[in-house]
């Protein structure tokens, strides 16, 4: 792969990581959803670029799926939910943004430190892609762990899935059927989570997952 195309794919992947950091920084839901849309958009750009450089036309389909569902549909539906629930002006109490950012930086360092020696013999594009994808996945998990709001946890899950997609498209020869099934499973998870959000909301008048815990029987 020539220098410029390598740089571009590297830049797009790095952009995803940067957007993940941005997500950690957002304490209100609508901007968080905006960043999620940007995240998915960056993913679809990255996938499209991979399709171009690898001469793999089926990856364009993946990119289109990412653009359509993840960058447009999912954020739009989530935004409507947030507005309908009336929590779009709430400020979420997060663990501590500075601390979370530091932890995220440590995670990026860990995934680079872990992945780069492991994939020493692989194609440099794949190496970088996979290392950055792992950091996106880890930051997504971190987002899920540090947030209390169920919507933010869904956002964390979506960004985690974006990271998985990034890793998958970086590796050559990924069958289309796998990508499609991953996309569908995420869609279904999204629908289920969406339904659950409303059920939780109906019952507890809040989407704070802490209230779920109070409802549960047995030991506290």
């Amino acid at each position, binding site marked *: 792969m020539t220098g410029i195309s390598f740089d571009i794919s590297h830049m797009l992947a790095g952009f995803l990581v940067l957007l993940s950091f941005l997500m950690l920084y957002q304490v209100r839901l609508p901007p968080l959803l905006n960043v999620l849309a940007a995240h998915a958009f960056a993913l679809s750009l990255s996938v499209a670029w991979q399709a171009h450089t690898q001469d793999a036309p089926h990856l364009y389909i993946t990119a289109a799926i990412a653009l359509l569902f993840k960058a447009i549909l999912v954020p739009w539906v989530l935004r409507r939910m947030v507005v309908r629930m009336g929590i779009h002006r709430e400020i979420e109490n997060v663990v501590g943004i500075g601390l979370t950012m530091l932890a995220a930086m440590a*995670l990026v360092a*860990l*995934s680079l*430190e*872990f992945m780069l*020696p*492991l994939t020493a013999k692989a194609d440099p594009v794949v190496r970088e892609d996979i290392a950055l994808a792992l950091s996106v996945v*880890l930051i997504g*998990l*971190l987002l*899920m*762990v540090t947030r*209390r709001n169920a919507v933010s*946890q869904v956002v964390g899950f979506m960004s985690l899935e974006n990271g998985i997609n990034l890793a998958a498209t970086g590796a050559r020869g990924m069958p289309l059927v796998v990508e499609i099934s991953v996309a569908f499973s995420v869609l279904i998870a999204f629908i289920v989570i969406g339904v659950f959000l409303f059920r939780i909301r109906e019952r507890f008048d809040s989407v704070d*997952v*802490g209230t*779920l*815990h109070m409802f*549960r029987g*047995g*030991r*506290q």
Partner: protein
Amino acid sequence: MGHCSPRAGPTDWPGAEDMGHQPEMIEPTAWCIAALLALSALSVCLPRRHGAIYAAATLVCLALLWCGATSLAAPVSGLKLPLGLPVTGVTLSLDPLAAAFLIPIGLGGAGACLYAIGYGQHEAEPARVVPFVPLFIAAMTLAVLAADAFVFLFAWELMSLASWALVLARHREDGNIHAAFVYLVMAVFSGLTLLLAFGLLAGTEGGFTFGAIRAARPTGGTAALVFVLATIGAGAKAGLVPLHVWLPLAHPAAPSHVSALMSGVMTKVAVYGFIRIVFDLAGPPVWWEAAIVLALGGATAALGALHALMERDLKRLLAYSTIENIGIVFIGLGLAMAFQSNGFTPGAVLALTAALFHALNHTVFKSLLFFGAGAVLHGAGTRDIGRLGGLIHRMPWTHAAMLTGCAAISALPPLNGFVSEWMTFQAILLRPDLPQWGLKIMIPVDGALLALTAALAAACFVRMHGIAFLGRPRSEPAATAHETDAWSTAAMALFAALCLVLGLVPGIAVDGLAPVVSSLLGERLPPQLGDKWLSLIPISASRSSYNGLLVFLFLASSTMIVVALAHRFGSSATRRAPAWDCGFPDPRPETQYTAESFSQPIRRVFGALVFRTRETVDMPAPGEMRAGGIVRYSRDLAWDGIYTPIATYVGIVSTRLNTIQFLTIRRYLTFVFLSLVALLLALALWQ
């Protein structure tokens, strides 16, 4: 059913010379497994045709027996089926060792199914039993045929699960649920240790086929760990002390023909697993491994016999006696390992032949004894020998078969049990000057333990047979007992005849096992059948030889002479009279020897040490209108020393860990996240 006779098997064994072109028997064997699985499914569809299912299973088992017998000396044949995991598939192979263990499976399976044609009719809920019997036999066959670790472990677990279902078949009887639970725990434990052993054998490359494992045998610490894990895993299934506790609970809980399969056949599959890993896959054994196996075998044999001697329950007694015989087999295996590790191959050959032969013999006589126990249980309605007595009049056929089995298992010539124990003794007496002190001490100790075991086993079976079949009935059901059905009697008669045949002409078994031994050790015993008068000469004629035929002729002729003389000079008039009773006729059967009183001397000698036996006199208070008595308490040290502490510890830990069942979603997510990060960190630092 003439051709279905299990006797057909051993006489079919070919000599080692005429093995030119053998057809590959692996495919017929695989078809047998498929047929057994189909029968298992069919029995669910046809809930009323159990006799037919068992009859068909008998025929399939005979086919298995034939496959095993004809491929003993055949070259290794393999088969790869496109089933199972996508990368490995299912690899089967039939080598001499597998063939040697197909014979007990086919023989024991055929006998149990033939017996069950009649015995299964008395089953209250046959649908709980019938489907699992062919499945159980199929799983055991698959375990023996497996040529990669996946198939072996799958078959091993299937065997455990099928037999667990059979143990649970009569779940309403007292204690059976407990027995099934203990069995399941031990089966899982055994499977886990074998899984770890195969994981170590396969190494980081993941070569799970036996061929790949043989190509890269482990060395040093890995080999030692594999040995320890394989001994625990296979030993737990075979019933080695102290892993034996489930066996006397689970084996008697199943219906009698299944008990025969579990005791007679499944323990052999465990022995097969041990031999396969320790002799074949993990490479040549080291001397300290031999010392461990010898110690475990000796302890198992002696403790099993002692427990059996104390037991009142007929089937539990037989289960303890299984433990004893497994100990004898492991003594033989330990001797073979000791000799092989010191490069003394002729001794190893003799010891391994003895172990394999004893395993086969045990299948024959333990199946026979469990068949008899089932007949007694059905005829007299109880397994408690303290309530039996006088069955010789009511159940003459069962009596004759059981007597043969008792004599064989007590190692009395001219029956088969004697030959294999005699060969084990020959291997012990052969002891050359081994350099290691551990073996120098362990082998004579095992010789003493084996002698003690033989004596205790004889006492145990004299007690069992004498109390159950002789004397006067001790209870109403025993007095009105009835003989069992024709199918069960036929199965018992065939196995009794087999005990005699294998004892009279042991050469057929020894010659049949020769290719197996030579495939593992490189050498074989000299051919025995060609020798004059069918003598068994394991080492050289000047050292020792045994001629079953001659012993039999001597016993028969001397008995006939004594009988003829007695009839010639004694009175020929038969009259029935009360037994001599010191002048005080007392009609109650309680005045006879009881099971407890017979074993009391031995309990006094060993009980305080081995069973922590305490006897207290229970005296009624003055004026109280009840009988006094002696109360006996005895304990199993394996339970007290090992299992109870482990169970307590597991209970404490699980109570502590219970709190993590009640966390918030975020805490669980945090757990997942932190463990993922910790693993990544560990890997990153590891590099």
